[in-house]
């Protein structure tokens, strides 16, 4: 029987080539964004995306509602993932307060609350009267001691009210760490520069909420613009509710407010 030669245009080599090309093209088709709008995360802070950001005409506030915090630690996990925070250092953390009937206050914060408070404290012998969780983060002070003491201007206040650190300027003297009354700062063990919570400034500029706010399952962390009268923080801050700031006597005028904070909270 005469063997019919295959067409020279469709030999084994060209067949494999075509299959490979098809596979690559198909894969590209799957990952190529067909119109970026379809994958865009919806704007979370209204009035920022797509508009000119007037940096001199912004005011933001952060509110922590202690009565809502359940100590799940999601905010801490989100923060650690957002910034790859080195172990043993914390941009944000959640404290557990336990108050006994003797009025003794027991506070702890194992691993900064990263693991969530899944078990009650076993070392308290007296009857527990009350317990609550207190998330902590940068207070974004209007008169920030860290900005004042930084000898090289690496820690600075942006015109829109954020206290930020320029890692390229920081000399790692740790004076800002000493000066922060809230211990919100740490020295990065590898970069050897000061770091702290920025309220996720990079996200805010894109109209996104801070990572911790976004993941909070109970709405204990709230963030928004004070220039937006419809925002939750505006309504709370301009409303009749009782709000406090931490260490008021320090005269730092924080932009971080606490709702339902007990007098034991420092």
């Amino acid at each position, binding site marked *: 029987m005469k063997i019919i030669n295959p067409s020279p245009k469709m030999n084994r080599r060209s067949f494999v080539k075509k299959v490979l090309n098809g596979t690559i093209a198909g894969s590209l088709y799957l990952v190529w964004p067909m119109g970026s709008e379809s994958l865009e995360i919806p704007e979370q802070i209204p009035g920022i995306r797509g508009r000119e950001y007037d940096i001199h005409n912004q005011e933001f506030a952060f509110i922590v509602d202690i009565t809502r915090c359940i100590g799940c630690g999601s905010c801490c996990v989100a923060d650690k993932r957002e910034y790859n925070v080195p172990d043993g250092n914390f941009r944000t953390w959640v404290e557990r307060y336990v108050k006994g009937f003797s009025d003794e*206050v027991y506070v702890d914060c194992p691993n900064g609350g990263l693991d969530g408070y899944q078990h009650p404290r076993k070392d308290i012998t007296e009857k527990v009267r009350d317990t609550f969780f207190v998330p902590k983060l940068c207070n974004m002070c209007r008169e920030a001691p860290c900005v004042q003491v930084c000898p090289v201007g690496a820690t600075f206040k942006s015109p829109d009210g954020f206290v930020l650190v320029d890692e390229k300027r920081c*000399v790692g003297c740790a004076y800002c760490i000493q000066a922060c009354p*809230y211990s919100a*700062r740490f020295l990065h063990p590898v970069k050897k520069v000061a770091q702290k919570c920025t309220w996720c400034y990079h996200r805010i500029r894109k109209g996104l909420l801070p990572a911790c706010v976004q993941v909070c399952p109970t709405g204990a962390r709230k963030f928004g613009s004070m220039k937006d009268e419809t925002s939750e923080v505006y309504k709370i801050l301009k409303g009749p509710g009782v709000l406090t700031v931490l260490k008021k006597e320090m005269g730092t005028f924080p932009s971080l407010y606490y709702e339902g904070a007990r007098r034991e909270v420092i």
Partner: protein
Amino acid sequence: MDTAYSFAAMPISNYVFPNDLHVHWSMMIVLYPYITGLVDGAFIIAALYYLFDIKTLRPVARFSLLFALAFLCCATLPLLLHLGRPERNLNMLLTPSPTSAMAGFGYIYAVSMGVLVFIVLFVYRPDLVELRVTSKGWLQFLYRAMTFDSIDLSEDALVLDKKIIRFLVGIGIPIAVVLHGYVGFIFGGVKANPTWSTPLMPVIFLFSACVSGICAIILAYIVIRKIKGRTIDHRCIKTCIKTLTLFFILAFAFEMLEVFSHSYLRTGYHHMVEGLLNGPLADSFWFWQVKIGSVIPLIILGVMGIFNIKDRLYDFMAAVVSTILLLQVFLMRWNVVIGGQLMSKSARGYTEFHPEWFGKEGILAVIIVMVIPFIILFVFSRIFPFWTTGNETDV
């Protein structure tokens, strides 16, 4: 809450903010004010002779200047070792933040160094002129620069030198006060830390600086003279001890005043400070700094001031009291710098500090940094004679 009660509860309620567990300012920041303190105290001795004409201090006057200069050369070493990014240290001078006290360091340091170098050059001009004449090549060029290109040693020129020295020492005193008072202010200006935040802090630092510097001069003078087998000028030692007594009484009074003020005012943070001094710092503060380091020297200084003691014994006692006080001042720096950071800003607990041996801020590094000024001093001794000979009547 009384102290006993707070300690009973400490293991359970000893809450330290998670970022406060680490002590950021460690031994190098203890060493830095210690070194600037030695510089200040030594300078005071020189100033007493050159400006205030306390003639009995003549034997140590030149040495004090060189001692101050040797240590001032090393004052930045601990800071560079401490900085996380030491390669950016010039940012302090290039882009200083006007609101920061620390930003002033570079300028204050540079001015201090400049003034001290000029004082030393003018004081040693006759010696340097002699060296210039006998030297050759690049060494002669160096001496020419160091003598301001003048070999004039006429009486008029020396009188002018003396006037210049008096002027430089005169402006040197406020600069020395600023150099070390500023160090105290670095701590005193931290409102977040209640053990530091007091206007007394620069004052305490200044007086203890004078104490440590004078002690260092007394001890170094006695030890070097003994090693060299030369006589010790007893009148000089006596004047140094009298000056030391004055400064130490002031330093100790202010140190205690700070503690007393805290405990009497009983402000919100009083219990935390009280707990710190009676807890983690009980040994290093109350026992070593106050009882051993302060009360015993006070008694010795009292005995030396009141009773007539034989010269040899007096000099021995001077060396002993100087050694104890040098340790006292170091402990005081330790208790302020490290101790102050043991107290968490949570106002509920205390952290711990364990010094390391081999890190860049470790014990070994501390020893090396403290040895370097003595090496510099040795090099200085090859160029500048420490002691004026007995026949000379003036600087």
